[in-house]
């Protein structure tokens, strides 16, 4: 293999990062203000809540599933929290209940999928409807305003340095990264995503792990909702709707496969989330019509998936050639 094809192969293999760098450089050239520490912080800050949801989604996608209910889960859990706070519950207790609600919704999904054997798409679609309705029921479909005790959390700096929401995001990134890369159960998720039957033969407890995965996704969605609330201070009736697609888009942009077993939290999903926020910020800086933003975003995601599918077939072809060569030896 000559140098040129080798470089090409490396670039293709890391196409997500290449794309990220290209956009970063492009925006930096086009707008001086884009390339500033302040802007980096804004981009990171905007990524936090959807980032948390996308982390949970990554787990589910890794085992070859999907969770369409995360947007509703976000809404339902913060609504429950809001009502509890209105009823003078202590903030900490309300937050814990908020996360537990996420856990319960996740567990509900898990039961439909692992016990009743529904397809994940259908199961989470049903949950999405029911949970959104339940949230609207509790909130009487009115917007909920949160007290200062909640909103001031977003301005609180951990160690006087890192904003709270960024700290939570970074912490969860670290924990989930370590879990997926270094915990036996994390590696088992990759195994399940690759082939359930072989995993079962190899002694992996497939059903319990699937169960826990959907539960984790539910908790992460609730956490995402919570973080969003600390920054917005208010939950409308359509809070969180459509976020399931944004989370899936971020994960897919970061190279997580919808067929399972491929992808990672870092750099993968993280890059995907940051890329979305960066492009959105960049478009603002270079004064692109606000209506064009989502068009450009959609085109970028399309491009990423397209490159990914081309890459897969190209690398497969390459592998075949290499294997052939090896066999001829």
């Amino acid at each position, binding site marked *: 293999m000559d140098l040129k094809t080798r470089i090409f192969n490396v670039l293709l293999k890391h196409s997500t990062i290449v794309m990220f760098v290209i956009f970063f450089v492009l925006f930096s050239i086009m707008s001086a203000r884009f390339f500033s520490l302040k802007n980096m912080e804004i981009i990171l800050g905007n990524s936090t809540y959807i980032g948390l949801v996308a982390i949970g989604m990554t787990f589910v996608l890794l085992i070859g599933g999907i969770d369409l209910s995360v947007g509703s889960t976000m809404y339902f859990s913060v609504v429950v929290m809001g009502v509890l706070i209105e009823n003078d519950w202590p903030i900490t207790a309300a937050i814990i209940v908020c996360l537990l609600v996420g856990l319960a919704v996740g567990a509900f999904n898990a039961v439909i999928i692992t016990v009743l054997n529904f397809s994940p798409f259908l199961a989470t679609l049903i949950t999405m409807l*029911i949970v959104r*309705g339940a949230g609207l*029921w509790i909130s009487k*479909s009115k917007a909920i305003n949160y007290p200062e005790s909640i909103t001031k959390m977003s301005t609180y700096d951990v160690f006087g340095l890192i904003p709270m929401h960024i700290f939570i995001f970074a912490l969860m990134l670290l924990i989930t990264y370590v879990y997926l890369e270094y915990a036996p159960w994390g590696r088992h998720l990759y195994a399940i995503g690759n082939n359930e039957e072989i995993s079962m033969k190899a002694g992996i407890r497939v059903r319990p792990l699937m169960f826990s995965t959907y539960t984790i996704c539910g908790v992460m969605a609730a956490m995402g909702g919570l973080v969003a609330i600390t920054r917005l201070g208010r939950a409308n009736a359509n809070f969180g709707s459509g976020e399931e697609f944004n989370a899936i888009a971020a994960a897919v942009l970061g190279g997580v496969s919808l*067929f399972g077993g491929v992808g990672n939290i870092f750099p993968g999903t993280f890059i995907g989330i940051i890329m979305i926020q960066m492009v959105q910020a960049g478009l603002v800086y270079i004064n692109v019509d606000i209506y064009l933003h989502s068009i450009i975003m959609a085109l970028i995601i*399309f491009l990423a*998936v397209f490159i990914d*599918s081309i890459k897969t077939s190209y690398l497969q072809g390459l592998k075949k050639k290499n294997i052939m060569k090896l066999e001829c030896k």
Partner: protein
Amino acid sequence: MTNNKLRYLKEQLFGDYFILIVTILYVVVLLPFIPRIISAYNLKNLFSNALPLIIIAVGQTYVLIIAGIDLSQTSIMAFSSVMGAFIMAEKFNPDIFSKCPLWGWFITESGGLFSGTMMAVPAAIIVMLLCGVLIGLLNGVSIAFFKMPAFIVTLVNMMLFTALAIYLPNSENILYLPKSFVFLGKGSFYSIITMPLIIVTVLVILAHLLLSTTLFGRKVYSVGTNAEAARVSGYKVKKIIICTYMISGFCAACGSILYTARLEQGRPTLGSASLLDIIGANIIAGVSLSGGRGKIISVVFGVFFFVILNNSLSLLNLPFYLIDIVKGLIILAAVLLDVIRMRKEQR
């Protein structure tokens, strides 16, 4: 003999007409509580809501049968609504539209590209249908040739064309559509036989005939059941997949025409809330998400069931948030019932 008759009855009950029977039972049970549900006004309202949705859901059925999914249908509705209106609208308010990217060459104060000419309405309809078919083609080619997952492809195209539909008219509704176009959505003969009823009936019959009596229909079922077996039997699987997505796009565009005409405006947010009804109606009609199963006739009943459900819940003065919960539970029950039915069949 009676045994046979019983079995026949059972088959019919649990077969194609199952969902129709459920719908009728549902209405009968609710009748004492809300007699208004069968009032002429309500029924008319109900029908006009259901008709465009039926044709869109039928398009989705084709895609679901080949084990795909088309999330982009709602964006096709919005996008073609806007495009059609751009072509035929009789005037544009410069205060609103002068910032549009199409202002000055495509649309002007005195109307859209073809406005005022004989060609306006036919051209608009052709362009609207073309939008649907071409977006379907884009979906199909990406899925069949580039092996991209259907879910992501149609999701991204949904995002893309929803955004385009909003961008082009700067998220404004486009008014002043020609009378002859509006007739398509509102016109009627003897006040009962409405234009949408005629159009949808014709299209549904065509869709039904295409799926159940033609070679193409057989190929669609074959590909959805076992694409590899279809390939070995000499079927051009890729072509068939692309065709179903084009049909889905075409049907969405037809629905868009009816809605646009009824609302008398090109609406960039058209259909944004109907995706769930489309897929939900298919699921309770027994169309399998894993492909190979589904009938047009059941889907028509499925849509009616969904529309009646919505209608009755609002007539009952139930809060609207309950609608989602009820819908969710009904899909859950329908799928569970289906699982039981399949198990029985296997025995």
